[in-house]
């Protein structure tokens, strides 16, 4: 694939290194000559000095044949504009933007950016995972965030403890994928599986159904 990366700071540097080693063709665009020098000393002539929001720079980088455009500068507004120029002026099939402000996720999606990566949200998700106060943990977002893989721990006080999964119609909206029980091999749930206290249930679900899922498992 031909991949253009806007921003040669830490993320841009490590990203280009990884993508090159996977055999992709990579160009990094940055405004700062010293950042470009650092990358080129180590990775060869893969950089272009310029403003990745300017059509002229993108044109020079051969953006028209790019399969993927990734904007990872430190500023959300620069990442947004660079992706919009790549997407709407040059029809790059896929654009990815790094965002710092989690609020911008909605805006960027509305404006046609294909994928957003929010470092703030990623860190928050990890905190959820290690801090056991929250019954529902986000493990993975798939299909551009339209589907989430979550883990729910069944508290001993839950009314579903001792019940058959098939006997819980309120779970119909969720796909129960796996049940992890302390000291046992993870098992695929069936309609006849009986839920136990402290079971960890892995579920594929639409994000707006999360509250309903917690309510259905009475662990909200």
């Amino acid at each position, binding site marked *: 694939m031909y991949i253009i990366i806007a921003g040669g700071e830490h993320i841009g540097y490590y990203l280009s290194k990884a993508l090159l080693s996977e055999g992709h063709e990579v160009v990094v665009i940055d405004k700062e000559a010293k950042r470009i020098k650092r990358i080129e000393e180590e990775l060869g002539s893969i950089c272009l000095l310029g403003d990745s*929001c300017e059509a002229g720079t993108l044109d020079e980088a051969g953006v028209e044949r790019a399969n993927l455009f990734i904007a990872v500068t430190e*500023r*959300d507004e620069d990442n*947004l*504009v660079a992706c919009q*120029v790549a997407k709407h002026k040059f029809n790059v099939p896929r654009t990815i933007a790094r965002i710092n402000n989690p609020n911008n996720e909605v805006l960027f999606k509305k*404006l046609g950016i294909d994928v957003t990566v929010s470092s703030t949200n990623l860190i928050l998700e990890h905190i959820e995972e290690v801090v056991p106060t929250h019954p529902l943990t986000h493990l993975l977002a798939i299909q551009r965030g339209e589907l989430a893989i979550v883990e729910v721990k069944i508290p001993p006080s839950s009314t579903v403890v001792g019940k058959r999964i098939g006997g819980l119609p309120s779970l119909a909206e969720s796909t129960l994928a796996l049940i992890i029980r302390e000291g046992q091999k993870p098992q695929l749930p069936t309609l006849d599986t009986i839920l136990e206290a402290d079971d960890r249930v892995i579920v594929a679900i639409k994000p707006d159904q999360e509250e309903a899922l917690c309510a259905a498992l009475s662990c909200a």
Partner: protein
Amino acid sequence: MKVLIMGCGRVGSELAALLDAKGHQVTVLDVDSATFAKLPATFSGVALLSDGTDEDSLRAAGIEGMDAFVAVTREDNRNIMSAQIAKHIFNTPKVICRIYDPLREELYQSLDLEAITPTKILAQMLEERLTK
């Protein structure tokens, strides 16, 4: 009319003063409070220390009740992003932003974002005067 102006530089402060003098309700935002000194002593609107590229800060500045939003900070991309937040998140009825880069302006006109490009306008005026 209620107007929110982002950026209290030369253009932002001048526009705020003009609208205020005509009796409009003006709120002006800037990340540097020193810029508010450019507002005239008679200015009766609100000057807020705030970053307008953030949805929460625009909400706190009262964008939900505004008739118009104008983005005139010195940076094109800040103006473009906040104008798109106003237009697409808050559905502000009238949104205008300044974009210095003529190529970027062309793209955003095609995406239905109203923009003014001072560099292009000035170049055209100069050209007219020189060749008249």
